[in-house]
């Protein structure tokens, strides 16, 4: 079931909370407590805007356990506007053709169903940026 495992990650999954390094200002997501850039301790929380652009993307047809019902789905590497990159599914694409460089924004969606009586795992996905925003 892994309830506690997913609960522990609620800040990251629901609100894109990462860290900022107090020494070199590097923005960090996912949080890791030691700055990957300068190697010093970094525990200051930082909330990301959730906006970014597609660095690369592909489609999964043959999905791993827990994701079969969603296949096929699009996954991407998204470069956040603050610098870090995240791996995430793209959603709400409609007829839109994905391309490298496409502006996207974070939304909260169901990621995985752990069986009939299991928990539903929610977290971030990205959709094309709405022009109004």
């Amino acid at each position, binding site marked *: 079931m892994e309830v506690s495992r997913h609960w522990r990650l609620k800040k990251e999954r629901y609100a894109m909370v990462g860290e900022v390094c107090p020494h070199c200002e590097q923005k960090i997501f996912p949080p890791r407590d030691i700055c990957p850039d300068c190697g010093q301790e970094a525990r200051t929380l930082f909330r990301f805007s959730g906006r970014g652009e597609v660095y*690369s993307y*592909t489609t999964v047809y*043959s999905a791993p*356990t827990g*994701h079969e019902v969603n296949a096929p*789905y699009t996954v991407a590497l998204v470069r956040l506007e603050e610098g870090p990159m995240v*791996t995430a599914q793209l959603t709400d694409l409609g007829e839109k053709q994905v391309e490298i460089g496409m502006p996207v924004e974070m939304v909260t969606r169901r990621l995985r169903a752990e069986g009939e009586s299991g928990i539903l795992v929610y977290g971030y996905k990205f959709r094309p940026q709405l022009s109004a925003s």
Partner: protein
Amino acid sequence: MSEMKPSPNAVYIVGIGLTQVAEHWERSLRELALEAIQAARAESPTLQPEALYVANMLSVSLSAQAQLGALLADFAGLRGIEACTVEAAGASGGAALRQAYLALRSGACQAALVVGAEKVSDKVSAEIEAALATASDADFESVQGITAAALAALLMRRYLNETQAPPDALAGFSLNAHANAAANPYAMFRRPIKKEAYARAAMLSEPVSILDAAPVADGAAALLLARGDALPEGSVLPPIRIAASTIAVTAPAIHDRPDPLFLTAAAEAAHRAYQQAGLSAEEVDLFELHDVFTIYAALALEAAGFAARGEGWRLAQDGAIGREGKIPICTFGGSKGRGDTAGATGVYQAAEVVMQLQGRAGENQVRDARIGMAQCLGGSGATAATHILIRDDGL
């Protein structure tokens, strides 16, 4: 040629054993491992191994079996010896070889076995995808439903975009692998493919097609190692010296790497290996790299210094990677043609390099091969284990 003496604390490979990579419905993990161990021991029958290092990634998730060190040592009639599993996903084979190397190098033991073994065919696709995805960052990659093919596809699409290479830029890696596998009795696929077949291949995860991806299957390979001061007398085959043994790592998640298209772990492991062996990339006669997807072949060639950044794909265009080329790779088919045996891959690679250096590669022989390199990668390149093997003349 003058008679050379082996260096006492150098480490040599004095036996290899391979099973065919296939869907072995009728055979278990322990039976495959035993066949490989026995074949390796038969090449130096007087040598008594004191330790067994098992390379395996998937048996906990796919066979509900931990403690392969004890299981396989017991099954091979080696109760009492030191044994354990070494796990570094797809780099497990190289990592296990390095542990054996260190044990012998330190003098803690005189002779040791390495066996890489994987059993996947008992499970169906979704479970295998999930098991292979355990090489990734579970909390931040796998939860998004990524697969090994999807990660390769993310790298390949970006690579083709940045280099402006044609869509079939990586075809040559697949063609070369299948051409070399055709003459390899241990390979899963024994026939060459045509360029038209690559162009028509079904997509796994665009732009990765089934002809960019190595098929996952069952198999086992083993190596028998001895210190220079414990080399068995009267061997017919020359012992092969491990001239360099390295491992380097980076972040498991691609998104955590500042430059996803440069495999820093592979580069560090390779360059440290050149330094240890006291040679340069140009002196390497063949390179068994980890082509579990074709994009990794291009990136590994760049990381190891055989091509400039963004130019690795060009080596697959003009025959440079073929048996007669500047840097022959995957000379027995690599993972693409031989079949992908996950954590056992590095052991297959080392055994293949040994066959090349001992001049028993048959139709696959690289002429005058004396220095060979093997490199296996964990996941999308987070771990890289590199070994350089040398045949010393006169031994």
